[in-house]
């Protein structure tokens, strides 16, 4: 097959009207259709796994189509180890989000639109990871925005459109700076392919401009990643969104921000200023912001009482880890660890939000102080919440442990060559303790202790199914990370 990746994008694109029409008749059928599309996409993508693992193809699989030659853009789709892992994990989350919605969204209105928007969202999300053309990348980057805005606004809690508005404006403001950076890259190189060496050569010839491009792009991506000074949209958007959307937001959308810094800022532009003073300062800056985010997120998560806001702040903390990991560029272990952490965080956080949604749905309250002793009443939900919380806290044998461990291995290597990293590494280790603290607090308040509410029942079938799928992933990825690690380590850095 020659058009695997094109089909991967076309399938949900063509699927949108079908999902909408099915949804008009039966919401459940629409959800299952979305899940089927995701499964088909996963199958399509997994056919490229052998190609990516094969050294003869330079661990890459590329498809290119005619698009806008005047603007140096062709419709280039590509996967390498990291983008393939991210795309697959994204689709798994979409699959579980759709299944979870069957019961979770049951009582809501206009579900046909909801599932159509979810399908639309999956195009943007997958597209971001599987393209190497910056223009197409930006297309998909913004395509995530509109469906998310309407899903949060249309089916969220409290004053959802306010949260959605905040989300849209913040991330769109970030995106226009990305656009500025992309425009400057086009101007300097006349080419927008991030894998093309010609881009790097041209950028190297203009190091002054490359600095600005790097800063503009990274600042734009950092907004989506919700790094601390520009994180304000995240707590509102994540906590007001319906649980499946929160899972996607926290699992993949902010992960896409990290992936973009990884791929575009560090992968494409950074080598032009690497080994200069500015380059080192830039990496140190990333580390500092990473530490700040990790502490800020963990500390607030420790005192927050709203069930979803705890998890939302823990997302900020985890993006801190990822940013810290990125600042260790180009150490192989750290980079592999960071990429793996994106994957692991996606499943763990997805599970965390889904299980929190399950609790909220069954109890109808959000304050964790009012809950308690649910472990006996909602066994599946409790198991999945505890799995997710422990994974987020970095406890073995759950998924996030292994990737955090790899990041720290990288950090110690970095300390060898750059004394600056001593303090951030120590602080990050302290932050890990904090994350264990909020995770345990969360478990204790909701699931342990005396039972305060009598009526809690276990969730219906589809919600259970979605959570169980993710529990399996969290545990399997913790014990046997080899599959994704093999994929990720095919990519060479620096």
């Amino acid at each position, binding site marked *: 097959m020659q058009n695997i990746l094109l089909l991967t994008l076309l399938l949900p694109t063509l699927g949108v009207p079908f999902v909408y029409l099915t949804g008009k008749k039966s919401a459940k059928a629409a959800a299952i259709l979305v899940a089927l599309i995701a499964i088909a996409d996963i199958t399509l993508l997994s056919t490229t796994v052998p190609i990516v693992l094969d050294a003869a193809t330079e661990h890459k699989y590329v498809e290119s189509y005619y698009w806008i030659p005047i603007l140096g853009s062709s419709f280039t789709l590509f996967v390498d180890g990291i983008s393939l892992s991210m795309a697959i994990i994204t689709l798994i989350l979409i699959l579980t989000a759709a299944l979870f919605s069957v019961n979770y969204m049951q009582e809501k209105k206009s579900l046909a639109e909801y599932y159509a928007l979810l399908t639309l969202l999956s195009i943007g999300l997958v597209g971001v990871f599987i393209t190497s053309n910056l223009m197409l990348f930006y*297309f998909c980057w913004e395509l995530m925005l509109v469906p998310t805005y*309407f899903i949060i*606004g*249309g089916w969220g809690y409290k004053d959802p459109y306010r949260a959605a508005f905040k989300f849209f*404006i913040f991330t769109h403001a970030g995106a*226009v700076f990305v656009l500025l950076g992309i425009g400057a890259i086009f101007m300097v190189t006349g080419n927008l392919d991030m894998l093309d060496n010609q881009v790097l050569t041209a950028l190297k010839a203009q190091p002054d401009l490359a600095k*600005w491009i790097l800063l503009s792009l990274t600042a734009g991506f950092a907004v989506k990643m919700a790094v601390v000074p520009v994180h304000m949209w995240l707590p509102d958007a994540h906590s007001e969104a319906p649980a499946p959307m929160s899972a996607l937001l926290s699992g993949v959308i902010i992960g896409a921000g990290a992936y973009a810094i990884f791929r575009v800022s560090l992968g494409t532009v950074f080598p032009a200023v690497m080994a200069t003073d500015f380059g080192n300062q830039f990496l140190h800056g990333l580390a500092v912001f990473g530490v700040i985010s990790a502490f800020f997120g963990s500390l607030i998560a420790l005192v927050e009482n709203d069930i979803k806001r705890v998890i939302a702040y823990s997302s900020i903390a985890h993006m801190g880890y990822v940013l810290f990991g990125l600042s260790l560029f180009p150490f192989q272990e750290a980079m592999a660890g960071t990429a793996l952490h994106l994957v692991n965080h996606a499943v763990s956080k997805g599970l965390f939000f889904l299980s929190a949604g399950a609790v909220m749905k069954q109890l109808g309250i959000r304050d964790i102080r009012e809950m308690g002793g649910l472990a006996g009443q909602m066994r599946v939900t409790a198991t999945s919440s505890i799995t997710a919380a422990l994974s987020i806290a970095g406890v073995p044998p759950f998924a996030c442990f292994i990737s955090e461990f790899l990041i720290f291995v990288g950090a110690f290597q970095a300390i060898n060559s750059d004394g600056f990293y001593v303090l951030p590494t120590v602080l990050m280790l302290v932050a890990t303790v904090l994350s264990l603290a909020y995770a345990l607090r969360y478990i204790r308040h909701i699931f342990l202790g005396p039972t305060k509410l009598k009526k809690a029942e276990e969730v219906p079938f589809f919600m259970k199914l979605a959570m169980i799928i993710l529990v399996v992933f969290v545990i399997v990825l913790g014990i046997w990370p080899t599959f994704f690690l093999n994929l990720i380590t095919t990519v060479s850095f620096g």
Partner: protein
Amino acid sequence: MIQILDASLPIISFVLFSLLTIPVVKAIRKRKSKKTVLTLGWFSIVFSIAAVPVANLTIKYYEQPSPQPFLNITLASEPFTIFSSTFMIDAISIYMAIAFTTVGAVTFLYSIFYINLSEKPSERYYSVMLMTIGCIIGVAFSGDLLTLFIFWEAAAAGSSFLMLYHKTPKSLHATLKYLVMIIIASAFIVYGLSIVYGITGTLNFWAVRQALTVLEDKHLLVTAFIFIAAGYAIEAAVVPFHMWLPDAYTAAPASSSAFLSALIDQGSYYVLLRVLIYILTPPTVLDWVIMLAVFSALTMTVGNLLALAQNNVKRLIANVCIADVGYNLVAITSVTPLGIMGNLYFFLVGGMTTAVSFMAVGILNRMGFETLDDFSGIGRKMPFTSLALLLGAFSFAGVPPLAGFIAKYLVFTSAIEANLGWLAVIGVLTSIIQAAYLLRLINYMYAKTPQEETKIKEPKKLLVPIFILVAVIILLGVYPTIVLNLIEPVIQQLPFIP
């Protein structure tokens, strides 16, 4: 070889049909049945016949082995050449003619349904609209400053009638404001032109250009430039000369606002582009880049801030038009091939987007919804109209995959290319403001609950032209190569490339 007839036939056909329309529509009105079908039939004949000369010209122009950049066609031969009206056909004018004809046809379709056929002077409305299309194509084809001036003023006169059509006190007031501004502007332009004629002894674009590049004493030229630039800036509604535009577009019937923003507005940017870059004073002759950059920053900022403070939706869209002038000026200021490409793309896309928004707002205004509060919950009551307005708003804000995105991308990139990074940053920041107020509009449409939940029947006929434009906007966003290929020859014959 392109003859004089080939060049003038598009203009002549529109003007001729404009005259024929009056008796034809009157005759149709007298009939008892099938009025709409007959009117539609007549105008589809008009547009398909008028499209033939445009197509003919395009084919003839591009069938030459290497299209000549400046093809001069003079009406009189020596020794009167310098006085004679001239047409100049180059790739830009052909592109503009195609854009004007196609977008004009769609906005016209909307007008047929919007301006009721049984209203008394509606035949005049249609006729003036056709004449204005003819004149604006004449603007694109003109080859000397005088011809440009005449066609442009004729188009302006036509537009004032289109604004005035409903004769409400508000529209009378707005049109008066517009006319006063236009008259001042033309006085400025005529004065400037006379100085140019004094310096160079000619008004022909090509001759003026050549004379100016070797000009040594530039004092008079500066005066002429200030007058001409100010004149055309008034007509293009560059801040601080923008006051007439929101009034005029708000008071005019929606079909007129759509038509004016899609054709006349874009025409006025075209004139600025033509006069500033092509003929009068390329930056090699007179250094105006910084001055215009400041005006463009001012226009973007003021236009967007005004729109932010707006409560009336139609006025809000009118203020977006002002902001669009600013974005176009950024591209003109950059004087780069990329910028010109951005300009030409923006002409088409910006025009269509404003047209879509005005058309959708027109439908809603008819139902009595005017302010943001009235728009509460429109999304549920009138799903299709709101969808069109929503997509228009996202296209303004530069959200892919809608066409506005590529236009903004080109504009900002060209500013960076011209070393005007600060202008690009201002552009980006103002476009965040733009996203904010457009999103506020969307918030009203979809988030707020309406006063009454009843569904309103949407006028299907009016939605047809709107969705034609929406489809084109999406298509051009996903696959802009269609239009960029048309623009490419323009870039190859730019005069300032050494």
